[in-house]
């Protein structure tokens, strides 16, 4: 394998192509704050897919634990899972592009908010107690019936149908597509086909909404969500929303016919029961029907209220609302329910049931969190760090190039060329495996350039020794590579082992450093041994009669 120059060049070429492919800017979904509405929305941005750590782009890192100061919490792992679920529902409230919410170990929650500028607000959002309520959806379609009025009011207020001209095109297009593909959902505006507003111009709001599968459920194409939100926030619309009805967005994004939609629910403004009355919830799989089921238990008082309310609402749909967001699809109330009830999720995976149970419990047993660690890095500091790091890197690499070319001449130049590949490979490794570049990682990268040439130095010194013993150039090169190998492998493996331990034991930035070091070691082995060898083969192939080697 790799005996011929051609096959070696091919291998290097493939590696290089893969690396460049990993580094070309791609579309990345980010959440950004819409300047018009102030809400968060998904957008796609083209950028080089290297994740920058919080210390480089600025942001907040928080570690939270369940507060045990006011009495022990028996099952902290369970409490932290509920807390994580709650923080995830609130993700939209953070002003950040890619929030990270993860459980570390058993009982610790890590929240990373890159680019967040207001730590106090972010902490408030995270530590706020969860609020759970059950509400009946708009069974009489009061909101739907009010839509023509709302559209009219918007027209009077000077809002063009479907807002901006650009958006209008996509809306009408979608409009047609949706009727043909999903017959179950009649597009909004059609339920009253003889309506006057429908024929000539679609209403400003109604053209954004599609009827969902159950009363009070509407689907809004993802890209129209900001427009719909801003329309719904207008006072003339607020005034016309029927009494006793409120609008709540769903947490889920549904995908229909290749389009993604957000759900919007019209629900009664009065909850039939709140999380205070909930005592426990469990997810299980019904052994008889093989369905995923969530069972829940209410307090005695809650049981009485629930019995009365569900008795009045048999066959109605009940939205489960956590922190003002409808979780999942509202289930139908099949019969009167007392202190114990269950929600059937049909054929959905048990995972979904577990998630719903977590939502119910989060509302029932709020987990008070204390912040045990906080790091806030201002965005300017991050930019300065990148600038300084790159500055130091350029100077450091420049010196390395100077030393190598000055000392080893043409061979040194080969090593420098390989060093260029080394940097590309390392960055591609970081991007390809989705690792995060941190400030120590940047230092590790600069440092590893200095260490990376070590393998070449070992090889070149060996070649010099061989040449000194009057070996032929070709033999000297072969022997040089062969004898340097064991030293290169042993020393690199031992360094990689320490870096690996650093990765296992370390946290955050230190792990970033270890990763950069490990990838750097792998890349330097490839370039120093394989690539430089290939360069030599080409060189010797061109000049078979070479007597002296520039090394």
């Amino acid at each position, binding site marked *: 394998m790799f005996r011929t120059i051609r096959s070696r060049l091919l291998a290097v070429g493939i590696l290089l192509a893969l690396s460049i492919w990993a580094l070309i800017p791609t579309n990345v979904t980010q959440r950004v704050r819409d300047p018009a509405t102030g809400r968060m929305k998904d957008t796609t941005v083209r950028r080089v897919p290297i994740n920058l750590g919080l210390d480089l782009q600025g942001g907040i890192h928080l*570690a939270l634990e369940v507060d045990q100061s006011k009495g022990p919490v028996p099952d902290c792992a369970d409490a932290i899972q509920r807390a994580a679920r709650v923080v995830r529902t609130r993700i939209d409230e953070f002003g950040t592009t890619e929030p990270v919410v993860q459980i570390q170990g058993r009982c610790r929650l890590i929240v990373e908010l890159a680019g967040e500028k207001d730590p106090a607000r972010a902490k408030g959002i995270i530590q706020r107690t969860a609020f759970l309520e059950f509400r009946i959806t708009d069974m009489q379609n009061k909101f739907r019936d009010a839509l023509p009025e709302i559209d009219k009011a918007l027209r009077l207020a000077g809002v063009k149908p479907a807002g901006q001209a650009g958006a209008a095109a996509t809306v009408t297009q979608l409009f047609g597509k949706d009727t043909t593909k999903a017959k179950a959902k009649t597009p909004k505006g059609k339920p009253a086909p003889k309506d006057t507003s429908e024929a000539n111009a679609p209403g400003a709001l109604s053209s954004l909404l599609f009827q969902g599968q159950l009363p009070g459920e509407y689907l809004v194409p993802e890209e129209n969500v900001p427009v719909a939100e801003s329309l719904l926030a207008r006072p003339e619309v607020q005034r016309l929303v029927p009494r006793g009805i409120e609008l709540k967005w769903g947490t889920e994004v549904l995908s229909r016919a290749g389009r993604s939609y957000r759900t919007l629910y019209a629900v009664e403004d009065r909850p039939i029961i709140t999380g205070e009355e909930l005592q426990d919830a469990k997810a299980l799989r019904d052994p008889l029907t093989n369905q995923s089921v969530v069972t829940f238990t209410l307090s005695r008082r809650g049981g009485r209220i629930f019995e009365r309310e569900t008795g009045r609402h048999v066959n109605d749909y009940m939205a489960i609302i956590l922190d003002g967001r409808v979780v999942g699809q509202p289930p139908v109330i099949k019969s009167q329910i007392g202190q114990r009830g269950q929600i059937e999720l049909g054929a959905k995976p048990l995972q979904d049931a577990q998630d719903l149970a977590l939502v119910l419990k989060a509302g029932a047993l709020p987990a008070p969190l204390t912040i*045990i660690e906080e790091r806030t890095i201002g965005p300017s*500091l991050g930019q300065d760090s990148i600038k300084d790091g790159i500055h130091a890197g350029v100077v450091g690499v420049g*010196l390395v190039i100077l030393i190598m070319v000055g000392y080893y001449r043409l061979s040194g130049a080969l090593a420098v060329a390989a060093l260029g590949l080394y940097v590309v490979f390392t960055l591609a490794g970081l991007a390809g495996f989705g690792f995060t570049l941190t400030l*120590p990682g940047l230092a590790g990268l600069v440092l590893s350039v200095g*260490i990376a040439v070590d393998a070449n*130095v070992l090889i070149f010194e060996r070649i010099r020794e061989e040449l*000194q013993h009057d070996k032929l150039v070709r033999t000297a090169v072969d022997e040089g590579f062969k004898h340097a190998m064991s030293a290169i492998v042993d020393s690199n493996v031992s360094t990689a082992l320490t870096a690996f331990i650093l990765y296992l034991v370390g946290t955050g930035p230190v792990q970033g450093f270890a990763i950069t070091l490990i990838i750097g070691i792998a890349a330097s082995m490839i370039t120093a041994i394989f690539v430089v060898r290939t360069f030599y083969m080409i060189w010797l192939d061109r000049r078979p009669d070479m007597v002296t080697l520039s090394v």
Partner: protein
Amino acid sequence: MIRLFANADYDFIKWRRWAYGLTAAIIIPGFALFLVHGLNYSIEFTGGTLIQVQTAQSVGAERIRGALDAAGIRDAEIQQFGGPNEYVIRARIGTAGTTAEGTTEATAAAVDSALTHSLGPAPTAFTIVRTEAVGPKVGRELQSKAFLAIFFSFIVTLVYLAFRFEWRFGLAAVLATFHDILTTIAFIRYLDLEVSLVVVGAVLTMVGYSLNDTIIIFDRVRENLRKFRRQNLYEILNLSINETLPRSVLTHGTTMATTIALVLLAGEVLRPFALVMTFAIFTGTFSSIYIAAPLLMYIEKRWPGQDARGARIFRHGGAEPVSPPPSPSSPTAPSGTSGGGSRSKAAV
């Protein structure tokens, strides 16, 4: 063609006692200081609050201290950081006992309001560019983790070297690396550098780098032991160090170039890391030559290996090598090459 230290023939091992003395002169006072004062741990380890502020004008640390004193934050230490209008305020848990658990958060807020009071409103008069608030529990965890990391890296290295070389080499390499950790702690103590997670990372990288360096020499020793059957370990060690000397100089040159660039240019946050790395290259190189190699000889003497060549020199009187150097014209050494064939290794 530039050649540094080509065909060098220095008797490194002869100077081992001087080297021990030098290194003891560095380690012992440093360690005494360390035992008396401890290290300047960052708040990541001690728990506490760090706030980095950037002021519009250069106000001086005194002004900030005055502002904090007025607000009743007395145990904070204030340090200029980088530019003339950047300051770092540190309040460690346990320094004066006032910052207790759970109040690290409150300290940050108190500093903010104290500065607003004294300097003016936040975005114009000053900006807080970095805040770190770490509870004591996290600090304790990190301490034990750092210790574990160093411990496990030793174990893994011992096993790897025992597997690739033999246990005597592994032990010598690990002991030399342990020496490096001691000198580095002394160095950190002398410069009173703040020990943060990143500096611990530098110490661990140093462990890797120093091992790397020792292994390069030991690899040569392993090779030369096979090649020159008649020489004793003293000569083989000297020969191997001399043969790898050009490589050592070159590699340390390039690595040093990058770490010095980091010291000078990479900014205040990375400076302790870069300083420790720069020192690590010194101590790593030094220990590979003057500590690891003599230690290997000592270990060989105490627990002789199969051919007991380490013990030979002691049989024949003192530290002087006795067996003749290999004949200069011995190109047919077992491995087909002879790196040291043309060198004279006669004792001085």
